């Protein structure tokens, strides 16, 4: 029982509605020392660079967590990526170059914001398509309802 215990706990958490909790549990079990390392990140003294780093960190997903960004995760993966982000900013790379670096390494899944490309057109435009169709149906309905009254 105990052997499968941890997986069960994660399963349970996800089932109960919070996979953030699951990742938190995962990091908790993996060792809170990671979180400690996360708690004292090196910070840029330059506020502009710091803001860029934080922005980039929020745009990158922690690939071993469920739904957390590099910015908020306490996992060792997040710690490493944060260090890499800051190294590259210090080297003077642009935001785009930094993001491309991680996409080359880990694929588009590391981006919190999915890229706009043919495969994701439906994702990006789908909701607005639904809005347009629903709006059209509403328009027709209102027209018809007005006529019914006349």
């Amino acid at each position, binding site marked *: 029982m105990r052997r499968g215990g941890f997986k069960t706990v994660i399963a349970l958490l996800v089932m109960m509605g919070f996979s953030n909790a699951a990742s938190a549990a995962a990091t908790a079990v993996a060792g809170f020392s990671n*979180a*400690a390392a996360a708690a004292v990140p090196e910070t840029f003294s330059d506020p502009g660079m710091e803001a860029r780093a934080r922005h980039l960190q929020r745009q990158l997903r922690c690939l071993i*967590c*469920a739904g957390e960004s590099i910015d908020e995760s306490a996992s060792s993966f997040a710690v490493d990526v944060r260090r890499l982000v800051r190294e590259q900013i210090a080297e003077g790379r642009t935001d785009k170059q930094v993001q491309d670096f991680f996409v080359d390494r880990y694929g*588009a899944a590391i981006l919190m914001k999915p890229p706009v490309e043919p495969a994701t057109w439906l994702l990006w435009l789908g909701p607005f398509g639904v809005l347009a169709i629903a709006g059209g149906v509403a328009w027709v309905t209102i027209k018809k309802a007005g006529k019914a009254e006349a």
Partner: protein
Amino acid sequence: MTGELGQLALCFALALSLVMTVAGLFGAKEDRAAARSVAVSSAFGLFVFVALAFLTLTYAFIVSDFSILDVASNSNTLKPLVYKISGVWGNHEGSMLLWVLVLSIYAALVAGLQRGGPRLTSAALGVQGLLAAAFLLFILFTSNPFLRLDPAPFEGAGLNPLLQDPGLAMHPPMLYAGYVGLSASFSYAAAALLVGEAGWARAARPFMLVAWMALTCGIALGSWWAYYELGWGGFWGWDPVENASLMPWLIATALLHSALATEKSGAFRTWSLLLAIAGFSLSLIGTFLVRSGLTSSVHAFATDPTRGFFIMVLIALAIGGALALFAWRAPTLQGGAAFEPASRETTLLLNNVFLVASCACVFVGTLYPMVLDAINGTKISVGPPYYVLTFGPIFFALLVLVPFGPQLNWRRGDLKAVWRSLYPALGLAAVAGVVVLAIASPRSLTAAGAFAVAGWLIGASILDIRKRRGARASAFAAALAHAGLGITLLGVTGTTVWRSEALTVVAPGQTMTVGPYTLRFDGVTRVKGPNYIADRGKFVIMEGGKAGATMLPEHRLYLAQGQDVTDTAIHTTGLRDLYLALGDDRDGGRFAVRAYVSPLAPLIWLGGLVMALGGALSLWGRLRLSEPENKPAAPAVAQAAE
């Protein structure tokens, strides 16, 4: 013995649910009173036996009967009593039993209240019985909580420490009351399609309201729990699991509005039926897609494949059956009612347009990565930035339109007059936006816009309440619910835009600053809880050199699991939270600390509560004013109120 008793109760419940299905449908179709009363009695019987099974399992958890596998895997003698009880639904088998218990409670309520007349009730019971039977079969064949374990272990494995929390003890029952509550609307809609639709929207309204309120509270509770328990100060992550609860909420909200038009003016008849079906379908899809682990790629844990297969078939049958019924019967329903473009009906229609589009956003965003991966192996992530760009503007547009709805009359409204009457709210909106732009730092146009919309919503609600002075309580339901939206918007904006944080290591005696606060760290003591040991940090808020309130965040080690959990400390002024999470021990008594200052954070959940209160007022008015089908024409104010 207890295990066998529970098992037997479940078998009886299954038999009764089948009787209820046959008798209910037959009694409705052939108009036989005897069959209908059999369906009613079976509904009560179903509730009694499911409740018995549930109590049996609860008893087994309380006395720590480790000869039952479910108890041995999920409980522990050291746990406090309240978490032994909440442990009943803190696992797959038990939570399925809770699911069926809630389903049977709604069945008993449908049977007891007899809303919408005997035939509609009977058909609804038939459908509800079918759902109960399907889930009871699922429990008995794939997820039996009463399986025995031989030999019984001396001690159980215990409940995950993160779940040992009052908020999370309450969260699943609340959310289930909402998810499963939508089954009553679903059953009524199916019944309306089977035996004729007259009066179903009115009959099902209390169930819609209860389900919606429970969902609202359940989501708020879950978000609050994530905020204070997980230690990173976030309240919503657009996680697939959170999205799964948001989708039924959006559709239930649309249904509440659409069914109101159906009931009051006969508009949107087929559409309301479809929404009732969609609401519960999304509950089913949401809960079980998430539970199967399909949506979380990394933590994809292997569940029993028979379970997944069984549940997929069940969902396909429920949704497919309902939609087929809809496709077959809906064209026979008579067409829509007449109304002018400037009317309450139009605003409710627009409400539905935007809510359905918002729901489409969440739906597409949640499922797209999975589908794309299945089609060609492309892996993408859909995170918060996606929702900010899609859900954000759509929902924002909805919020801008909200204040018009309650002011316009049914069928024919005076848009100009309504617009003029809303001038004060517009003024409040402008003031809120300008003030935020002028004094808040960092300066944010988004925040100014959000505050303006919040001011617009709250201002319009105040105007609405003033206008209806003296009306019965339920007349204020919409005003409260809409004001709640504005309050939540304030909280979300404040927390997102102006949160400050500090991640640092402190030694005893040192001070740290975060936002406007200075904190003195007084060191850590070791404390012992019932089933954990903890490092308890003592932090004192310094106010002008003097010691103010004390905060005691903990870092706990739960013994049964050997798991670390942070127990955050939150100091709130009601309008601002100071949030502390204690990290781990660095040498020399130094500790890592995360501190956040979240302006307006409490308003997020206060808004949810106010929304739910609006629902409660409406429900109260409904139940008090029960059923006069041809009630005399209400005075204009009261009528506009609904």
